[in-house]
Structures are given as structure tokens and as C-alpha cells.
């Protein structure tokens, strides 16, 4: 038999184990694809919607209704957003307001000023109130003293799906490191395979290198599937260097591999490792800006959020893919990721138990 090398055999064993498990292939490739398509459709850019407004039917409502109907007619002819007008008795429209079915109720009374009822904390209610007030004021002769014009931006790169794809790439990289290294190692320990391996002259370094090598190999299809989905299906632009996209993903994968190794270094049961994985992943799912920008969180927690590896992977990928950032621009993100990788590997290798 030709001399075979432990590193190569260990690496091949890992690759075989992966592609022979259809369920894993679904969770790594199918699931993010479905998530991207689902969320991409749910949050796709739609034509601007009509302004929804309810009007109380009473003795004073007819003139107001005429004004609004006239505006709606004109707007539709000019293909601008029109109105979604509902005229009904007071009981009914106020019930609709309370239950959130309409954002704005206009209540005209002869003896009192025209009254708007709305919840000022709802952005669409405030917008509707402003728009309806403008229509009514203009119909009664108000002239705008300053001329203005609108330029509308619906460019690829600024849509939700463009924001989402780099987030999903980061999520997949995190999952791959934690499941593919952490969970796997604990299962090997439970099956006494780790102990069986160290009972042979196998170089332990080769075992870990094969694990990492397989992890980085799977990164290529992981990344390709989501990038192709983004560019081919959703027309997402890639404005930066593709090599840099890959480099960020690799450094990120090493950071998560280190965390996976650390989690697995002592855990003796699947329950322990599952708990630890949730402990690590949940904050990053929530805080790292995968689905929604992390800038909405309070200023006080921003340093913590910025220190999380997933924040840096996702942020770095977005800057390169969507903004065309260069190597120097994302160097800080890569430095933070590299620090995670170095520290976690160092600690994990010191405390790792083979049995």
C-alpha cells in the first residue's frame, strides 16, 4: 500500500462524513437559501402604498370627503400614491383606530376645528396626518412658498435583501465553526473516538489541522451558494474585491473554529455542549446585526456588540460587498477576528481533554 499520511486520511474522512449526510447538507445550504428567499420576498421593495385614512360621517363630512376624493382621483391619474379612504359613522371608525386597522381618523365638526385622531408613536400615522393636512390646507388655498423636487432612490445595494445576504453568510460561518468543530468534537469524545485516536501514534496536530482544513474547504461552497443566490436571483451588487470577501470569511471561520474548540475542550455530554453553543450563539443572533442593523441598540452596549466576532464578520462583508471597501478599510474588523482566533485557540489547546 502506498504510504498514506495521517493528515490527508483524517481530512478525507471529515469530507466524506459531511457529504454522506444529506441532512447536514440541507442545514448548511438549503436552509440559508430558503431563509434568504423567504425574507427577501417578505421585505422586497414594493411600490409606495396608498395613504390610509378614515373619515367620520356626519353633517360636516361631505366637503372634506369631496376634497379627498378629488385629490385621490388626480393622484391616480398622475400615478402617484392615492388614498385609501373609509367613510363611516364615528363608532365604527374609532373602533378601527383603537384596533390598529387605520392609522388616522379625521373628525370634521361644524363648530370646532377639524380634528385628527392618531397615535403619534406610529410613524405611518404621523406621515398620514401630515399628508392629509397638506391636502386639505392646499385645497383651501395654501400655497407653498418654496419650490421643491424629489429624487427617488431604489438602487440595488440599498435594499433589505442586500443587507440580509452578508448577514446570512456570517451566520453560516458561525454555525459551521460551532457545529462543525465544537459539536463534532464532543460527539467524538462521547463515542470514545478521541481517546481511541490518542491511543495510536497519530500526531494530534494533524487531527486538528484536518478538522480546520475540512472546515475551510466547506467555506467555499457555503460562501458560493449565498453569493450566487444574492447576485443571480436578487441582483445584489458585489462592489468590492471578491478575494477580500473570502479573506474576511476565512478569518471569521478561524475565530468561530477557535470558539468551537474552546466550547468542546471539556464538555462531556451533548447537553452541555448544546447549552454552551446556545449561550455563545444567541447573543450574536440578536445583537450582531444579521437581520436588523445593530446600530439601533443603545450606545452603552455598542462596544460589546462591536467586540462580538459575528458583528465584525457581517459588518466587514457588508462594507466590502455593498460599499466596495478595500483591505485597509476592513483591517480593524479582521484584526478583531484574528484576536478572537488566536486567544480561543491558545486557551482551548491548553485545556483540551482527549478523553
Amino acid at each position, binding site marked *: 500500500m502506498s504510504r498514506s*499520511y495521517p493528515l490527508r486520511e*483524517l481530512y478525507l474522512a471529515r469530507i466524506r*462524513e459531511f457529504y454522506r449526510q444529506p441532512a447536514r447538507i440541507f442545514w448548511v445550504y438549503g436552509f440559508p437559501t430558503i431563509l434568504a428567499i423567504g425574507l427577501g420576498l417578505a421585505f422586497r421593495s414594493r411600490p409606495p402604498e396608498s395613504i390610509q385614512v378614515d373619515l367620520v360621517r356626519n353633517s360636516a363630512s361631505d366637503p372634506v370627503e369631496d376634497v379627498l376624493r378629488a385629490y385621490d382621483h388626480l393622484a391616480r391619474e398622475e400615478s402617484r400614491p392615492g388614498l385609501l379612504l373609509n367613510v363611516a359613522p364615528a363608532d365604527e371608525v374609532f373602533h378601527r383606530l383603537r384596533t390598529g386597522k387605520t392609522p388616522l381618523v379625521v373628525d370634521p365638526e361644524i363648530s370646532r376645528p377639524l380634528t385628527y385622531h392618531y397615535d403619534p408613536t406610529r410613524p405611518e400615522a404621523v406621515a398620514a396626518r401630515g399628508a392629509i393636512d397638506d391636502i386639505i390646507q392646499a385645497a383651501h388655498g395654501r400655497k407653498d412658498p418654496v419650490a421643491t423636487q424629489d429624487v427617488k432612490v431604489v438602487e440595488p445595494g440599498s435594499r433589505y435583501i442586500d443587507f440580509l445576504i452578508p448577514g446570512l453568510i456570517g451566520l453560516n460561518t458561525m454555525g459551521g465553526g460551532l457545529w462543525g468543530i465544537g459539536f463534532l468534537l464532543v460527539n467524538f469524545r462521547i463515542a470514545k473516538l478521541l481517546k481511541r485516536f490518542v491511543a*495510536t*501514534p497519530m500526531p494530534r496536530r494533524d487531527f486538528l489541522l484536518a478538522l480546520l482544513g475540512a472546515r475551510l474547504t466547506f467555506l467555499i461552497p457555503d460562501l458560493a451558494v449565498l453569493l450566487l443566490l444574492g447576485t443571480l436571483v436578487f441582483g445584489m451588487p458585489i462592489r468590492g474585491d471578491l478575494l477580500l470577501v473570502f479573506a474576511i470569511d476565512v478569518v471569521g471561520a478561524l475565530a468561530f473554529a477557535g470558539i468551537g474548540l474552546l466550547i468542546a475542550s471539556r464538555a462531556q455530554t451533548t447537553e452541555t455542549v448544546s447549552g454552551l453553543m446556545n449561550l455563545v450563539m444567541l447573543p450574536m443572533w440578536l445583537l450582531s446585526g444579521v437581520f436588523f442593523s445593530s446600530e439601533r441598540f443603545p450606545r452603552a452596549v455598542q462596544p460589546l456588540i462591536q467586540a462580538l466576532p459575528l458583528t465584525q464578520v457581517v459588518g466587514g462583508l457588508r462594507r466590502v460587498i455593498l460599499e466596495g471597501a478595500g483591505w485597509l478599510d476592513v483591517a480593524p474588523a479582521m484584526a478583531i477576528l484574528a484576536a478572537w482566533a488566536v486567544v480561543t485557540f491558545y486557551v482551548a489547546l491548553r485545556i483540551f481533554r482527549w*478523553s
Partner: protein
Amino acid sequence: MGDWAIRVKDLRKQYPGRDGPVDAVSGIDLEVPFGECFGLLGPNGAGKTTTVEILEGLNQPTSGEVEVLGLRWQDDEAAIRERIGVTLQETRFPEKQTVYEMVRLFRSFYRDGLEPHEVLERVSLEGKANAYVEQLSGGQQQRLAVAVALVGDPVLLFLDEPTTGLDPQSRRQLWDVIRDHRGRGRTTVLTTHYMDEAERLCDRVAIIDRGKIIALGSPADLIARLGGEHIVEFALGGEAPAPVPSSFAGLPTVLAARAEGDGFALTVGEPHRAIPALLDHLDDEGRHLARLTTRQVSLEDVFVSLTGRHLRDNEPEEPARDGSGRKRRRGRRG
């Protein structure tokens, strides 16, 4: 290299326990010459696995000297690893690898060794070379574990309870593999709690109980030390209270008498003299027999006579090696 495959002096291993330290191994001396098949016998929790794991370099002794193939673990780990083969209790190999791939993987760890196909032939798994591990029966998985232990062509083979939980046919197939290894002049150390297995396979056995060797010798020697060659087992019928075992000790050629289950067991030198005397005795007492059997003395009887307990009495489990006091046992598939 020394003359011994294994040499152990005053080996001790202590685990921290909830109620103070637990002595898993408390002072074992052992010498196993090259070419011998050596058995470590004892009930669960006796310290067998701890002892072999120390010999295999997978566990560190608290104190004592261990020499394997004339080398010491702390100085020559790599050299020892190249020349020993190990099966652990219940290793589960990855399900989606084929038998051949697993053997090939382990072959790659050794500088010298056997061809994967040759090893599979030795354990009669050549027909399963391309089957996934998950498709193997329990006996086939255990033979795969042995194949993986043999692939480095070891001088010294450790087998930790290789046949526990296997059906009789699978056990016999494994015995053939072990005999074959011994036939090549190689050394084998095996632990078991099946006394018949030790009697058939081992040149010498050490009986371990509570971390100590309580008897050491060839199976025939140990049996001979009981004095008698036969065991007469009987049970009495009727309502009368059971007599004490010692009331049978005075019968001709009876060397020992003990209560055994619902009846009695007598260690007997000459059954043809003892049994008629026993029948007369029972007649005189007005008792009648419910059952009477005779058989050859076995290592099981040796263990019972030494400890007063049976081997497979439910003893507390061996303490877990991480000292957490938990022991995980998983059923083997198939």
C-alpha cells in the same frame, strides 16, 4: 528491551470521590512475558479498566512503576504507541465511513503495519469492506475495533472486555482472532468478566477484586488450588427449614460447602463417593432432592471461594475517569 512485555510494580490509582478519595487500583504487581495471553478478571468496578488504561498510557497512575515493552510512558510514548494495539470498551466509529476507510485511516497513523485487506481477512470482515459502519452488527463492529487495533501489527494487543454484550457466535469469532494473534507469538492482555472466556483463551489470569489482585496463575492452577475438581449442586424440596451448609462439609471428599441460590454447592474431590453419601445423609434426615447436578470446577468457583461473591453480582460501577462520578453507557447498535 526487557524480558517482559509488561511489568508493573505497586500500581495505585486514586480518584477524588464525593465521600473522599476512591482507590480504583490499590497496589498491583504484574509481570507478563512476551507471547502470553494474559487475562484480567473481575467484576465491574474491580479496577480492570483503570489498570489497562494505565498500561495503555491513557490514564496516569497515582503512584507505582509501569514498564511496557521495556519502555516507560513518560520517556518513550511514541515508540510504545507504534507497537501496541488497543480496543477500548465500546468505541463507536463514525457511522458514515466504510469498514475499509476506517482501517485505512488508522493504518496511516503507524509507520509500519499491515495492509487493510490483510487485517480485514484476519477478523473475517473482508466481505464487509465497503459497508458503512452503521450497517454492521454489534459483533462486526467489535471485530472492526479489533481490526483497527491490529492494523499497526502490534507486538502487544490490549482488549478491554472485547466480547461483552455479544451473541455466542460473535464471541467465538472474536476468540478465533485472539487465538490467531497469540499463535503469531504476540502478547495479548484482555479484560473480561466472563470466566469461561478466560479459561479458553488465557495462559494466565489475574483475578482482581476491589483494586487488588487476589489470585494469579494459569486457569488450571487456580482451579487446582480449590482442591476439588468437581462441583455438586443440589436443592432440597419440602417445607422443612433449610439446613446450614456446614452440615454437608463432613461428607466424604467434600472440601467446601456453601449456600448457592436456592440450594447448595459442594466442592468435591470424588463425586462417586460424595454423591451416594449425600443421598444417604438426606435420606436419614427425611429430606428429598429437588435437583442435583455435577460439573467441573470453573474460575467462577475460584472467584466465589475467594470473595464469597459472584462475578456478575451487581457491583457499583467503576468510578468515571474524569472523577465527576457519572458514568455514561451507551448501547451498542445492531
